[in-house]
């Protein structure tokens, strides 16, 4: 391979973090996204910057990684984070039965948790269900799901990466069994062109299966849409979680003057057919008003869905039990198709870590030892994206 060949990244949230990482390591990078940046999955998420506590009961690796990334993002993108913390609250005996295991596992994962008296929880958050039985403070935070990832795009662009939105990949260019670039259509002009690449990174989230199929490869991707509802009014200052294993309607994420009720999840075949099943909205209200009763008196401000790109795991049919960890496939090794790498899984909180691991793999593939610098490199403010040429 030539020195510092051109790398094409397909797709938004993690793609932006990867473009930043690779640009810092000296690679030439072009990112293509079929719509506006972050219009697929990342931009639509509820904004929770996980402390990891949500995952300790069933996915300790994801929990540990979340806490690590939480601290890094607070440092490198401080302006895109409301750093107000979160609470896990127990509302019945069943919730209480998880409390000790929850605290133990948080501590085991290194997540600083602080059990507090119920009276203190109610003083901190007056809107909580007053019948709560226990409360634990956790270092959750809230990110701006558009502006935080735009910090990565702004910095990548300033470091020389080419970012092309409204540019849809129509085919992978193949030379024999190797991917050597992409064919794209610019939606502004409907003109088609080819971009040559030494390596193509498929980071298209729930749409990654379509890209891989262009090279005749099947990947174990399971689109898992979920519904979220926002209501007018900031009901709490902090993120409120139910102290239970992860499930539906177990979180309220406040942000600006809104509160977001999340989430539901199901498994789908197609990432694009994400209409909202009508019964999910009343279900979210019913579940979330148990956390904060005032929710019950409010109307939906917005209702939307987003498709998570989960990694298929054998027969697990419960979307809440599928790991939120991610995998990075080198299709040269896996399928005998060189020049293509696919990322699957993960979540917004860990986008930087996913990018680091993928960039490490790319360095390894291309025979270079260039260390990652994204943990300590402060990102440029997102507004710089529209300030540079």
């Amino acid at each position, binding site marked *: 391979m030539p020195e510092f060949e051109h790398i094409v990244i397909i797709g938004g949230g993690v793609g932006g973090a990867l473009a930043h990482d690779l640009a810092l390591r000296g690679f030439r990078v072009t990112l293509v996204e079929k*719509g*506006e*940046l*972050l*219009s697929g999955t990342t*931009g*639509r998420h509820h*904004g929770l910057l996980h402390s990891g506590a949500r995952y300790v009961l069933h996915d300790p690796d994801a929990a540990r990684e979340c806490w690590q990334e939480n601290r890094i993002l607070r440092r490198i993108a*401080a*302006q*895109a984070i*409301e*750093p*107000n*913390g979160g609470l896990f609250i127990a509302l019945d005996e069943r919730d209480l039965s998880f409390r000790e295991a929850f605290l133990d596992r948080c501590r085991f994962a290194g997540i600083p948790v602080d059990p507090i008296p119920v009276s203190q929880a109610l*003083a*901190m*958050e*007056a*809107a909580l269900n007053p019948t709560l039985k226990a409360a634990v403070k956790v270092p959750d935070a809230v990110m*701006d*799901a*558009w*502006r935080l990832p735009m910090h990565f795009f*702004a910095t990548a662009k300033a470091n020389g990466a080419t970012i092309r939105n*409204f540019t*849809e990949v129509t085919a992978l260019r193949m030379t024999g069994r190797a991917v050597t670039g992409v064919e794209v*259509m610019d*939606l*502004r*002009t*409907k*003109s088609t062109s080819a971009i040559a690449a030494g390596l193509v990174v498929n980071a298209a989230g729930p749409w990654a299966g379509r890209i891989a199929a262009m090279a005749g490869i099947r990947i174990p991707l399971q689109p898992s849409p979920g519904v*979220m509802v*926002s209501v007018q009014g*900031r*009901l*709490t*200052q*902090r993120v409120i979680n139910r102290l239970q294993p992860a499930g539906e309607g177990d979180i309220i994420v406040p*942000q*600006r*003057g*809104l509160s*977001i009720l999340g989430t539901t999840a199901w498994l789908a075949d197609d990432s*694009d*057919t994400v209409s909202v099943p*009508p019964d999910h909205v009343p279900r979210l209200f019913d579940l979330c008003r148990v956390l904060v009763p005032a929710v019950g008196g409010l109307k*939906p*401000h*917005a*209702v*939307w869905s*987003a498709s998570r790109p989960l990694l298929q795991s054998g027969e697990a049919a419960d979307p809440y039990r599928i790991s939120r960890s991610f995998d990075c496939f080198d299709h040269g090794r896996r399928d005998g198709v060189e020049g293509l790498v696919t990322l699957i899984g993960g979540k917004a909180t860990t986008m930087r870590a996913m990018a680091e691991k993928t960039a490490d793999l790319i360095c390894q593939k291309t025979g270079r030892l260039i260390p990652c610098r994204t943990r300590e490199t402060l990102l*440029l*403010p*997102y*507004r710089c994206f*529209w*300030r540079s040429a």
Partner: protein
Amino acid sequence: MTARTVGFRISRYKPSHIDPPRFESYRIEVEEGMTVLDVLERIRLTLDGSLMYRHSCHHSSCGTCACLVNGVERLACNTRVLDLGTDTVRLEPLRGFERAGDLTVRMETFYRDIEPGWSYLKPSAPSAHGEADSGTELLRFEACIECGCCVSACPASRPRPDFMGPAALAAIHNQMAKNPPDADELLQLAGSGRGERWCERALACSRVCPAGVNPARLIADLRREIKKSLP
């Protein structure tokens, strides 16, 4: 659940392909609760994959999906189609911005006078909602989601592209409150030849703001401060 067939006239433009712009019509079965953004998604996924519009969060936090709905600046994501009460809904891009394609505009001029480094966080008033932990301050994002509605609606901005416009003036006001040491310099900026003096007090900015920022009031505050600072 009620549903109704609604006509959509969407201004289409693709440089050198659909040029000059023209309206294209679509008829869509709209269910209760469906937003203008839901309709755009449906058209893109089922009728025309090349339709361009900006969107990201789908709940009025990112500010990307602003456009003209029946001639008025609104966010597509929280404008419910049936609430508009019209048989046909006309969709056009924001006014006064360079057009990239279809409903998509370029945001470079919007950010020209908003410094990247100005803080996007502000103290979150504790009020009845709760208290901060000792030794910490509760913070929240600025209410302004930088959607461009105010600039598009401003009658002074359109004929005078060098006027910094309501969003930048509101941002100056917010930054002055958060950074008193910089207040004099920021006030000079607001009082400069591209600043507050061009505001016509039409109040259109505040009328269309989907985030309740009320730029017109903030501009009036700046005007008073500028007057006071004059020798």
